């Protein structure tokens, strides 16, 4: 009988105790593996976030953002300047348009004791001076609602509605404008890849064309499908694809190519925003400064898209850290369990160890026998633990993420709303607005990303986890194995 066979036999000497030890080890190992799986899943997600969203900068005209503010518009020359900055991998220009349904016009508000005439948002340029309002035959998918009407009512006057001593305000329903954006690549206004749910993209985004991408809710509202047509400024466009932006505001939008939008706005060289992608997360801060310096503080405002997701990434990082600590703690627990069990077994078998030494067993053989016996217990615990982990890791990861990000998500949502709400009243009707949409989008995305972490037990992670468990078990078993070397046979045999 070899040392291994003897170790296996010893592991099953007391079956009830072995079962109990295996059960306890399985829980510790299962927890360790679950934490490792959660750690890997969150780590991958953090990498994904950092790689996709965390490396973009948004450039707006100095003093302007979306349809708001003032200053001079950005031009393709500035896009080229930004592209020449070190660590910049790409620059995508956008051109924002406001599509007004042809029927939208002047509205009036009448109160009991006073009347205010209000001009609608159709036609003309807004404060930013960089958007173009163009007509379309499309109908907005978003009803004005209380927010839209309230914003519209204070539009050009900057006051809120009309009130009198006992006055009431009545406003007819308003049709909100539709967001149209010319894009230089297949990304949305925040630089995130468009999620085209049917049809195709626009193909060549560097030339003008009569194809468009339409948001899902806008398509539904106007009974559009791939191949359908609609008009902007009397030009007929064909729906090439339908996209899902993930938000009601984002889906009330149209994308055309950048040159087409510039043509429609009759501003061929102008850009509303530029989305600058940096080559790595580490270079984002320095590149932001470099782009800002290259364009000039009086010409452009550079904001870091990553900031929007910092809280989310930070939250995921903290989940990652927690899961790593929990993994190490569970591993240590497994090691301590092994240590205690093996110390107990060594004490229990002192006499047997003495006999083995008396008949000529070297210390290393006896030590090896105990280490192998502990590994047999760990192997059984690992099998059961792996089964536990395969069922529990998803739930544990979700619980970790949800418990750790609930506060963050609330904060994020609140901040996103705050930014949208910060858009000056009356300038942009509706609950979003370009400013709000531009900043709020990533926030909404962050919440989605936080909950989209999927923990799956991959063989590689499982193997790494079990290898770590075995390493810890060997360390745990070495101490009692070394204890056997200190047992002197005469001491235990004298007990006779």
């Amino acid at each position, binding site marked *: *009988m070899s040392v291994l066979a003897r170790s296996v036999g010893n592991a099953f000497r007391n079956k009830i105790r072995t079962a109990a030890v295996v059960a306890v080890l399985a829980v510790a190992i299962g927890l360790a593996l679950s934490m490792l799986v959660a750690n890997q899943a969150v780590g991958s997600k953090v990498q994904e976030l950092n790689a996709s969203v965390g490396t973009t900068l948004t450039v707006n005209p100095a003093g302007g953002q979306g349809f708001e503010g003032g200053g001079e518009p950005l031009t393709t020359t500035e896009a080229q300047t930004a592209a020449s900055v070190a660590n910049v991998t790409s620059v995508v220009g956008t051109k924002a348009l406001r599509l007004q349904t042809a029927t939208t016009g002047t509205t009036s508000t009448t109160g009991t004791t006073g009347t205010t005439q209000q001009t609608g948002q159709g036609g003309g340029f807004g404060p930013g001076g960089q958007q173009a309002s163009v007509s379309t035959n499309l109908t907005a998918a978003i009803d004005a609602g209380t927010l839209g009407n309230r914003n519209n009512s204070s539009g050009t006057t900057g006051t809120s509605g009309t009130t009198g001593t006992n006055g009431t305000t009545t406003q007819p329903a308003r049709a909100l404008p539709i967001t149209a954006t010319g894009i230089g690549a297949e990304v949305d206004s925040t630089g995130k890849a468009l999620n085209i749910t049917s049809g195709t993209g626009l193909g060549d985004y560097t030339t003008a064309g009569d194809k468009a991408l339409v948001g899902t809710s806008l398509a539904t509202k106007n009974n559009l499908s791939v191949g359908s047509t609609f008009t902007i400024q009397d030009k007929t466009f064909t729906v090439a694809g339908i996209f899902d932006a993930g938000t009601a505001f984002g889906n009330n939008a149209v994308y055309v190519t950048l040159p087409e939008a510039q043509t429609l706005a009759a501003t061929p060289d102008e850009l509303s925003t530029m989305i600058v992608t940096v080559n790595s997360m580490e270079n984002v801060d320095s590149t932001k400064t470099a782009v800002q310096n290259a364009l000039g503080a009086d010409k452009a405002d550079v904001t870091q898209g990553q900031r929007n997701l910092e809280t989310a990434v930070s939250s995921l990082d903290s989940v990652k850290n927690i899961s790593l600590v929990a993994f190490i703690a569970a591993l240590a627990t497994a090691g301590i369990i092994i240590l205690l069990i093996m110390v107990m077994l060594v004490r229990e078998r002192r006499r047997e160890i003495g006999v083995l030494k008396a008949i000529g067993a*070297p210390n290393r053989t006896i030590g090896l026998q105990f280490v192998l016996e502990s590994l047999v217990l760990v192997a059984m615990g690992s099998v059961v633990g792996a089964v536990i982990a395969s069922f529990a890791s998803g739930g544990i990861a979700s619980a970790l993420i949800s418990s750790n990000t609930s506060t963050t998500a609330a904060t994020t949502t609140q901040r996103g709303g705050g930014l949208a709400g910060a858009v000056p009243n009356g300038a942009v009707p509706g609950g979003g607005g370009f400013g709000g949409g531009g900043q709020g989008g990533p926030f909404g995305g962050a919440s989605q990303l936080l909950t989209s972490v999927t923990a799956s037990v991959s063989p590689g992670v499982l193997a790494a986890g079990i290898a770590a468990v075995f390493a810890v078990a060997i360390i745990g078993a070495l101490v009692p194995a070394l204890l056997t070397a200190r047992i002197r046979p005469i001491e235990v045999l004298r007990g*006779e």
Partner: protein
Amino acid sequence: MIEVKDLVRQFKSGDRTIKPVNGVSFELEKGSLSSIVGKSGSGKSTLLSLLGALDKPTSGDVVVDGVSLAGLPDGKLTEYRRRDIGFVFQQFNLIPNLSAVDNVMLPMEFAGIRKAARLKRAKELLEQVQLDPEKHPRRTNRLSGGEQQRVAIARALANEPKLILADEPTGNLDEQTGEHIIELLSSLSRDHNTTILVVTHDRSLAQKTERCFRLQQGRLTEEVRSGSRR
């Protein structure tokens, strides 16, 4: 030839110094069967432990076939026990969850003998000690006391040692089984030309050995007897 030279083993017990073995010297011829008698606590087992290198003497030496044990490192002493010594204990001290055959194979495994060879020899030894072949694969905790002692003797013979040290080998057995065990040891001594030293407090058992030593207050004296066992 086993030579014991002025062997002393002393312990501290509080302020007192106890010398269970105090200047013991004797020689054992190869293939002899000898016994040491004495009262409980007279130092018999301590002397046996010193001869078997389970313990180290305070002074003196044990020389086995010209090799001195004094000053040998632990590793060499382990090797000495494995190669040159066979132990038979009063409590048998078999590994309870192993079969009779596996118990006998253990010392051979430690000596690096191949599995097939040690299995063959283990079976032969168990036959020599007259253990029913049906009981060879049986776990030793399911054997009777006499059967367990036979297995223990077979285990002691496994590596063909120069010296077998038996500490009260019949102490846990009934009279008839004890006599069988002594006869077995006697025949093994003859057949294998192995030196056997039995420690016992049983005078009738000691009478059956060639030489009988008395240990009293740490000192050894040989009893002079007429006749021989052979």
